[in-house]
């Protein structure tokens, strides 16, 4: 069985973000980098599937500068067999369509039975790459999964919908799935695996080799949110406070509509 998991290296969300000089993305100085949270669930599920099936080869793919290799090592340490790094220093300028075309370009001749991705990235948050890749490859996609199981070429999964409702879905492989919070608890890499990861195959493919499509979207401007009014501090007797709070919730929000 051949499995692919696609990950993205994103800045840690606690970082202090500043708009870059061009005004179209965030500046990269003083940022701490890590694996996109949703991609951690994808990697974990892919590794669990590999362990279940036994005879399986798991590749981790990541697009970006050389810096992203650190994050790929973590995926390798979690259990991926090999890494495919698509070397692109300007990947942040590409829209989901262009990114998906790179992944599809890599995957199209490799007959992956299953492709795992995260539901969305923490920095851009489009949530489109997984589905676009599936369409480009002509395979079904199941998104926002919070439960996953596989047997004899069939996937049975649950998708998370609004209001705590889950939808049961299934499809045959080859397919692509995108992973949501709650699907699993990503493992902490063990030291032997961290050490083995240093020796696993990690090839860098120049982005031009994969003939990327042009972006269909262009980012015009990135700006921090406007500062609105400050917080409101309520003080006094708890019973009065409760009344005040209910009033505010009624008037200023739809929480008590």
């Amino acid at each position, binding site marked *: 069985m051949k499995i692919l998991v696609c990950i993205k290296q994103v800045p*840690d969300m*606690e*970082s*202090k973000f500043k708009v870059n000089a061009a005004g179209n993305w965030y500046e990269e100085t*003083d*940022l*701490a*980098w*890590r694996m996109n949270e949703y991609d951690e669930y994808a990697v974990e599920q892919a590794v669990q599937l590999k362990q279940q099936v036994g005879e399986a080869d798991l590749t981790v793919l990541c697009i970006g500068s050389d810096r992203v290799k650190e994050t790929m090592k973590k995926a390798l340490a979690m259990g991926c067999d090999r890494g495919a790094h698509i070397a692109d220093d300007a990947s942040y300028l590409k829209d989901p369509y262009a990114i998906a075309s790179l992944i599809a370009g890599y995957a199209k001749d490799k007959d992956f039975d299953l492709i795992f991705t995260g539901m969305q990235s923490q920095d851009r948050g489009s949530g489109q790459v997984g589905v676009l890749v599936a369409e480009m490859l002509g395979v079904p996609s199941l998104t926002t999964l919070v439960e996953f199981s596989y047997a004899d070429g069939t996937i049975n999964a649950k998708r998370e919908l609004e209001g705590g409702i889950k939808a049961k879905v299934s499809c045959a492989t080859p397919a692509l799935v995108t992973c949501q919070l709650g699907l699993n*608890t990503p*493992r*902490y*890499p*063990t*030291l*032997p695996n*961290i*050490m083995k990861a240093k020796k696993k195959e990690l090839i860098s493919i120049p982005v031009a080799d994969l003939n990327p499509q042009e972006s269909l979207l262009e980012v015009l401007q990135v700006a921090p949110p406007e500062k609105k009014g400050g917080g409101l501090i309520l003080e006094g007797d708890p019973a009065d406070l409760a009344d005040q709070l209910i009033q505010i919730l009624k008037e200023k929000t739809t929480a008590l509509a």
Partner: protein
Amino acid sequence: MENTREIYWNVGHGAATLVPMYLLSLAAVAILVYMFLQRVKIYKQGQTLNRTDQLPLRITAMIKNVLLQSKVLSVRGPGVAHALFFWGFFILFLGTCLIVLQADFTDLFFGVKFLKGSFYLFFSLILDIAGLISILMLIGLLVRRYVVRPAGLENKKDDIIMHGLLLAILITGFLIEGARMAVTEMGTTLSAWSPVGLWVAKALSSMGEPAVRGLHSNLWWLHLLMVIAFIAIIPFTKLRHIFTTSANYLFTDLGPKGLVPTIDMEDEEAESFGAAQVTDMTWKDIFDADACTTCKRCQDRCPAWATDKPLSPMKVVQQIGEIACSNPASSLLETIDKDAIWACTTCRACQEICPADIEHVNKIIDIRRNLVLMEGEFPGEEVMTAMENTEVNGNPFGLAFASRGDWAEGLPIVTLGKNSDVDILYFVGCYASFDKRNQAIAKAFVQLCDAAGVKVGILGKEEKCCGEPMRKMGNEYLYQMQANENIEQFKSYRIKQIVTTCPHCFNTLNKDYRDLGLDVKISHYTEYLAELLEQGKFKLTPQPFDCTYHDSCYLGRYNDIYQAPRTLLAAAGANLTEMEKHGTESFCCSAGGGRILADENIGSRISEKRAQMAAETGAPTLISNCPFCLTMFEDGIKGAGLDEQLQPKDLAEILVERLA
């Protein structure tokens, strides 16, 4: 009458006495040696460890600890009883040796006798007193064990055998002496020099000489057989501690205190890390179980045990020994409770008090290392998250590394990246950098340094967590990653001196980092400021206040820094009421051992227990000088409902309020 006695009186000095006596002794010693050699096979199941370096130092330490009973005496009651019993028995043993030496060697072959004259008078008196004290102490210990029954003291079969046999040996000794004196020394001035023997002799005076002689020779052979038995059962009972505990003084950890072995991460051959089976531990870890006499002093002081967590340091030590004997191929955690392993705060109260020099803490860290490094397991998800945060942002909070130096804005302090002309590097640590309550301590320290004219620099966003909580939780890899990055920064700025306000950072930089190549002077702020104060570099105007002081584990037990903080408190005008558990007996705040990262879900709160102890002094302020302690006390005092009467403060805050 001559000041001497006929040795072997009544039993005879011929072959009929000597042959069986020496044959039996030989047999007993043979059993002793053979059984110990068998035991050595069990120790050898463990990994190698060099504990025979600096032999003269080790031998001196062993002789001092054995003869002076210094560690035994650290707990008064039973410690004094044991020490006196030991000295008494040891004197009797030496006396017996002298008798054998004369009777079977110097007199037999060379006609030389030394047990005579004034020497013999004092010899008799000292042995009689020694024997009496031994009996009294032994009875006292017997009463303590079987009548008083202190909580947690388990009684096994070999306890009653040991007490009984030793008492019987001592008592028959006096009966034999009394019987001899009843026939040979009545009415002499000599007899006064064996007062106990004389008392027994008088009690036997109603019996006729033949009966006394019969009693004497029977008891003599009984006494001999019991001593032979005593020697032979040493390897089978707790009596083995005569040798194993003494040996443990020889094999002691020569320090520095609390240093954890550094795993070589470059070792490509290493297949496993930490201890999964008893064979992963060292021979010393297995040997410790034999040196342990289950005196329970460690258990009595363990903060986890005191708050109903399943950790008993004594039990862990004993279980390792049991596993090594009965099932060495098994996984340690099949026997040892995992919750017990995670509950340890590495406070070192166990090791500090242990009279047998047993090393409890590193065994627990070794087992944790296996869980973390080989299984990726932690006591809870919150700990895994803290580890991942540290990997990404260099602090367990997961806050942006770039803002690590923001607390220092506007203060008379430089960031080394911009200006490296400083007197000291202030290694701030994660809590003082990011935690609001503890930032106040960092600011106070900087102000105190400024008043003393010291140029302080910080690494700011280039500083990473010292890695200590991660290391103590078992994550050696993450610790070394953080440590190596910090050391590289220290070297690149050519730092000469580092001061910290956190005892954990202090202990780690000062000891653990040396294994990784750091070679710089490191101080904790209490010692540093105490020195500056003494040199007159800054002045304090004392304002009297009532307080109690908490000796944090990593400053006190780990580094023996007890006086400097008290000197500073006195200079500040403190009226200090000590808690009962202070100094080496201080009770942990619960955050050590990496447990600052974890939730406390079992039993009651250790921090609340300590808050109660502080409140009991009646003092309104609880002073400490560790960010973990301060954090735990803020929570513990509120949790215990004591926030109306007790307030936690750091020493730095007190001092900065009193700057002249």
